[in-house]
């Protein structure tokens, strides 16, 4: 049952991203008992499922964030000498539609997290602390 919350959204992701997100979530699932020991929190099935969900969201956010910032900082460092960068068949320049699309991807994901009571700061914390927060939320 551990991946039930993850699988529910991961099936909407393209294959390679899904593999990364689910694979990472599985690695956290495998480590969940050690995490609970360190957090000194009793691990229930529901808590473990929530922890694994947070891990999957964290991985998805890392993928979106890393990709956007690599692109943003690359265009910034190249400066005015170029009008954009071409990756595959897509040309990115600050402000163009493709660039904005990646910017919105990251921004909208962070809005979704905020609306759900999760913050980027929270999901980036060490897992024992996340588990503690999840446990506190249930009390």
């Amino acid at each position, binding site marked *: 049952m551990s991946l039930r*919350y993850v699988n529910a959204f991961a099936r909407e992701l393209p294959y390679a991203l899904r593999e990364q997100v689910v694979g990472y979530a599985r*690695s956290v699932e495998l480590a969940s008992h050690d995490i609970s020991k360190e957090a000194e929190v009793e691990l229930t099935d529901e808590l473990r499922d929530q922890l694994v969900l947070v891990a999957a969201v964290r991985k998805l956010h890392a993928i979106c964030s890393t990709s956007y*910032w*690599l692109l943003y900082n*690359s265009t910034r460092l190249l400066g005015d000498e170029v009008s*954009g960068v071409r990756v595959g068949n897509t040309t990115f320049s600050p402000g163009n539609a493709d660039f904005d699309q990646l910017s919105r991807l990251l921004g909208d994901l962070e809005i979704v997290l905020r609306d759900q009571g999760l913050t980027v700061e929270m999901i980036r914390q060490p897992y024992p602390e996340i588990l503690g927060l999840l446990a506190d939320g249930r009390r």
Partner: protein
Amino acid sequence: MDADSVSRAIQQFAREHRTALDFLNARQPQLLEMGAMVGVVQHYRASGYSTSIRNPVGTQIFRVKLSTQGHPADYSHVVCERGTSICELHSNLSVIGGRDAGVYCVDVAIVNAGVVPHKKGKKAAPPTPNSDLISFVEAKKLVIYPMLLAQFVGIVHEVAPKFLKRDRKYELGDGHLHPSLVALGRLGTNTQDILKSFKRRKYKISIAEHFDIRLSAAARGGNLSPFAGTISELLQRSAEAKSLRDDSGLAIDDDTDELSGIVTTTAMEAALNREISDDEIPF
């Protein structure tokens, strides 16, 4: 936390952003290769070189070669010049190995000026002779784990074995970058011991973990090389450079501070934590 609600919200998000996610699905490694190329450009700028970007004829678009296929003339390259030292940076360039006639394709090649054809002929571009390869960079979107280090050393062993010799005469001068491994993840659990061992063995290679954060720090200003020092040192120098600019009354021209979060102490910690989500050992 309402896990059902979170899951449904992310599901809806994934549906709404399918096009962008499809792009990342296909191009995530290539974005890192592009970042590696730009990072090398920045390294040479920080080392006092003037850099000149040469795009394919008729375009101002920086076009990075992202596979072994294609002629170098169809892609951008960068000419770096400092006094009498001139070199060129090429992406995904085929080079002849350092031990035999094997042909290897390195993600970013630093080569002597003028050795890569800039015009297309009737034949495919020949691989660059090993003697013209100054150095190179490989990019991996992974946590740096022992076998990745071993693989990289293996590549250096075949492509540029001189950097694994203890002999001092193989030290690169002119601010050139040693063969480098660029990765998105952090250094894995026991990689520090391996890196110390590399140092004892006088391997002239560098490992740039958290490269997205390194590139962010370099982009903040201060003319920093994203390959120089540890992440903490780089972020510190970047923060100091920004502080100096702020003190001098220079305006910040964008909203990067709020978004990238690599300036304040708290935000530095957050930036450092970001890639932990790529870790194989998740806590």
